[in-house]
């Protein structure tokens, strides 16, 4: 969902670092069949490398798609993409769930993380949209890939050497992004109410521990709260890479990425509150008219275009901040029913949004 291009362009250091290791992104990958148990959020790294969050396996899988040829930069419009994916997979549209959309920045090719079926035996499938709008299942039978198992694997429900029982704990991955040489992963447990954000170095090490941090955001009053991150995006504020995270309880929080250290407890700064009935879905950042903007899709308000003017270097809250009214935003009325959002290129976004009836349409829209 998140493209690293903005950061790379803005941060000379990142560019150098990227160039130095560009040839090595597939180092340590093995070629063979990728066994996915599920396909949640997806995002692209450099050189057409796709990261897939496999929640059921508690793992992030990186695959080298080999899809690195620059695309034609054409407008995209595929109506009823859910029906078409269903036909390709030999099923009905109501048996298809599209978990995420990501555009490969190397080729401008849209990729979809799809689940066929709704029960325990549901099958994850990766689908891409070709230049002519036709759909193609990405074969995972023989592909270069690497895998990072998420640490802190849940303990078994039965203690000691007692009989093993199936363990109901699972950590859902709510979002992921690639930044410089790390995969950032936000997780949400189906038991503890906590927010974990991990930074896993890439290429994955043999034991990809990553770092787990606990993030608090000072609300505009005096309470600090822990809460799961719903969606996030790396973003430059001045020369400092920041993470903008939308929380499940609606604040939009900013904190410096440099604070992401093992075991750290980070306090973020609330820069906006989306308010009631807003389930943040997806975010992108882009440049227009010499300014940086944040575009946030959410369940109730449609798409919000948010100025980054107020996002000066975040500091930890040490004194009570009286009622932050929040950063200014504008609701993009024309963008109704957006469920998935990514950046297609410098001037266009790609969305999946509700069409007529149960149809979901994939279309490119000029960035507002």
């Amino acid at each position: 969902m998140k493209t690293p291009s903005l950061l790379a362009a803005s941060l000379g250091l990142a560019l150098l670092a990227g160039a130095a290791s560009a040839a090595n992104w597939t180092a340590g990958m093995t070629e063979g069949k990728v066994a996915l148990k599920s396909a949640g959020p997806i995002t692209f790294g450099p050189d057409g490398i796709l990261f897939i969050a496999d929640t059921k396996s508690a793992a992030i899988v990186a695959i080298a798609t080999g899809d690195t040829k620059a695309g034609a930069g054409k407008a995209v419009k595929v109506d009823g993409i859910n029906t078409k994916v269903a036909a390709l997979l030999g099923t009905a549209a109501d048996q298809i769930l599209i978990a995420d959309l990501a555009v490969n920045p190397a080729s401008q090719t849209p990729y979809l993380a799809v689940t066929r079926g709704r029960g325990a035996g549901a099958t994850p499938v990766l689908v891409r949209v070709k230049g002519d709008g036709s759909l193609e299942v990405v074969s995972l039978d023989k592909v270069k890939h690497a895998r990072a198992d998420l640490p802190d694997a849940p303990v078994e429900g039965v203690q000691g050497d007692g009989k093993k029982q199936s363990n109901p704990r699972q950590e859902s991955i709510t979002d992921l992004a690639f930044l410089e040489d790390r995969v950032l992963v936000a997780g949400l447990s189906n038991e503890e109410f906590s927010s974990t954000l991990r930074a896993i170095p890439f290429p994955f090490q043999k034991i990809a521990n990553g770092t787990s941090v606990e993030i608090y955001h000072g609300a505009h009053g005096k309470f600090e709260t822990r809460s799961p991150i719903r969606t996030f995006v790396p973003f430059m504020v001045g020369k400092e890479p920041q993470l903008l995270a939308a929380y499940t309880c609606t604040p939009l929080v900013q904190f410096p990425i440099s604070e992401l250290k093992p075991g750290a407890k980070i306090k973020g700064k609330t820069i906006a509150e989306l308010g009631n009935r807003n389930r943040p879905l997806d975010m992108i950042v882009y440049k227009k008219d010499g300014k940086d903007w944040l575009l946030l899709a959410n369940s109730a308000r449609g798409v919000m275009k948010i100025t980054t003017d107020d996002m000066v270097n975040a500091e930890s809250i040490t004194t009570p901040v009286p009622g932050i009214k929040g950063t200014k935003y504008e609701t993009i009325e024309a963008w109704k029913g957006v469920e998935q959002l990514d950046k297609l290129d410098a001037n266009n976004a790609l969305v999946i949004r509700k069409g007529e009836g149960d149809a979901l349409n994939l279309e490119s829209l000029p960035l507002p």
Partner: protein
Amino acid sequence: MRWRPALAGLLFVCIADALELGTNSFAAEPPLPSPGFTAVFLRWVSVPKETNRLTVEVSGLSRDTLSALQAPEWAATNWPRLLAVFVEQPGTEPLSMLGEHRIESGLLRFVPAFPLEPGLRYRAVFDAGQLPGAPSTTAGKVTSILQIPVQRERSTTTVTQVYPSADVLPENLLKFYVHFSAPMSRGNIYEHIRLLNAANQPVNLPFLELAEELWSTDMLRLTLFIDPGRIKREVKPLEEIGPALVAGQRFTLLIGGNWKDANGHRMKHAFMKRFTVGPPDREPPDPQRWGYQAPPIRTREPLAIDLAEPLDSALALRMIHVVDESGRAVPGQPFLTERERIWKFLPQHSWKAGHYSLVVETTIEDLAGNNIGKPFEVDVFEGVSKRLERTTVKLPFELR
């Protein structure tokens, strides 16, 4: 290389196998039979022991034709035009289903990548005009339609338990766990869940509606968080529309009967959990206040711990451990009684006299998400430094 498949005239026969699928229908457009020419059969064949796994077989193709289909000149992109399977969906353009074409045992086979779905119609199309070397005038297509029967509805799945099981729940309750008797289906689950107020009116958006849907791996348990925006003080949703649960009032958690299980069957019946809401709980659980009842040694009587308040059911079962004097885990099975207020531990072997400890992870939660030493909401300007940083709390006890 030149090939000369025998294509001048073909007899097409379409057979829909008498599969164990109930009614099969088939349709074909066979050209006029010309005695003396090769007969080509198109049929659906079920894969033994696998539900709704079928392949399409084309038999009767000449050896030359089969060789031509294996030759390097035959491009992979030609396959779907020669033999393909389509889901019959009215009003949409047909897109061929993903699968693999194989030449084996003198047959051309199409193996769909996925099982076929109950209730859907599938059309297999073989187009002889697409065979290598076929003259454009070659008569065309053979079609076979297969209807996969709809499963008989068997509504047997029920909600077996909702935790917390207490009848009085705190106003700042953080989550429910809904347990089902059989695996459920994912997707749009919030359509089937309602929180009703005392007037039986649905509370507007009480839950944290996550597209990820927090299921256990076996799809038997759903975690339902109350929208934290309506629990936390000084965040906008709470200020704008107030809490989802209000102290002193009665509520009902309703799980609708139209929710389908993993096999696509509706639930046996709807489920209701009625409860009263009490005051908010902002006190962290305190193990120093826990009591225990020691089991007699040389028995397998359970050890019983009174937790002083109900704790989160899943976490209480996972985060409380019994260790012996040397710190080794005592094998056994924990379970909860008295509406998750009493934690019991059934040892695998008889208790021996000696020193034991209860080890509790501090991330355990009560019903409002308070941790040991850390309330759900921390007042950042009062007493943060006193916050407990340890990850476990040890409570020693002795059995004599």
